């Protein structure tokens, strides 16, 4: 299958110093944009997203030789990216001033960086997602935008499928309610 061949190629190329560049290019071409958008939706800021993506890739290359293939490569990549996003949230909590929670601060960044003047409904939608509790925010992003299966999200977040479904359902209803109030 083409999917498995590409993953194998990526792992082989990235595991050797002499082919690191080629491995990076193939990894970026196959999964880079998807990972970047996933991270960007969670951390919002352009520079922050780049920093988190960079840390994700550094960890990918650091640990890829120990990758056991007991999950799909993209599941493993999402797991590392998620961990880096959570680390980012923890670091921000230490320095945030004037904001009650990460979600408020992230919503502030969303509006501050909105140079292309996106439609109000789009901004309100993303603001509602950012103001979800952390776990619901993660699950919603992976399920709604990336359409990952609950089993895959379970591997990434180490939560049960049932609790993920409950979190997603609750998040979805909350966003709908918030948008109804805003419009």
């Amino acid at each position, binding site marked *: 299958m083409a999917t498995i061949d590409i993953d194998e190629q990526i792992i082989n190329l990235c595991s050797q110093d002499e082919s690191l560049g080629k491995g990076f290019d193939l990894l970026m071409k196959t999964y880079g944009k998807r990972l970047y958008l996933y991270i960007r939706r969670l951390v919002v800021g352009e520079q922050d997203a780049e920093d988190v993506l960079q840390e994700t890739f550094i960890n990918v290359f650091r640990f890829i030789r120990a990758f056991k293939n007991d999950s799909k490569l993209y599941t493993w990549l999402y797991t590392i990216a998620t961990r880096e996003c959570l680390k980012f949230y923890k670091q921000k909590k230490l320095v945030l001033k004037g904001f009650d929670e990460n979600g408020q601060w992230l919503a502030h960044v*969303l509006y501050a960086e909105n*140079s292309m003047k996106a439609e109000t409904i789009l901004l309100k939608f993303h603001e509602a997602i950012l103001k979800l509790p952390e776990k619901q925010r993660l699950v919603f992003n992976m399920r709604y935008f990336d359409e990952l299966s609950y089993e895959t999200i379970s591997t990434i977040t180490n939560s049960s499928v049932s609790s993920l479904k409950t979190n997603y359902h609750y998040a979805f209803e909350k966003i709908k309610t918030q948008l109804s109030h805003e419009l």
Partner: protein
Amino acid sequence: MSYNIEDHENYLKNELPYNLSEEKWQQLQQRIKEKVTPENVVPIRKEKLNFRYKALAGLVAGMALLFILVTPRYSKTGTDIKTSPSANAEQQLDQAINSLNEDELDWIHGLNENELSEQEEYIENQVQL
């Protein structure tokens, strides 16, 4: 006025509130590539990982024991869950849900499941490249 997310799914899923031009994307990739070099990335070999995991496991076990001994215990019903006094009802509900264990969430999902129709659940799909 209610806003139906399902009706606008295509738009909400595919449009972004921020722009990333192809040129910016290429520059970003280049910057990251320069940081990911053999000198900057020291690979962790399996043997080192095993040793680290064992040391980490010992540390975690010690911390867990300390945590069990010094922290207050909450009742299973969650009635003693402490929430910040300033949190509103919605925030308190969020905190309550986040503090539930897996069994409790499974039970709640069992209640919710009866409310979810087939149309409201996304079809489980295989990720295709």
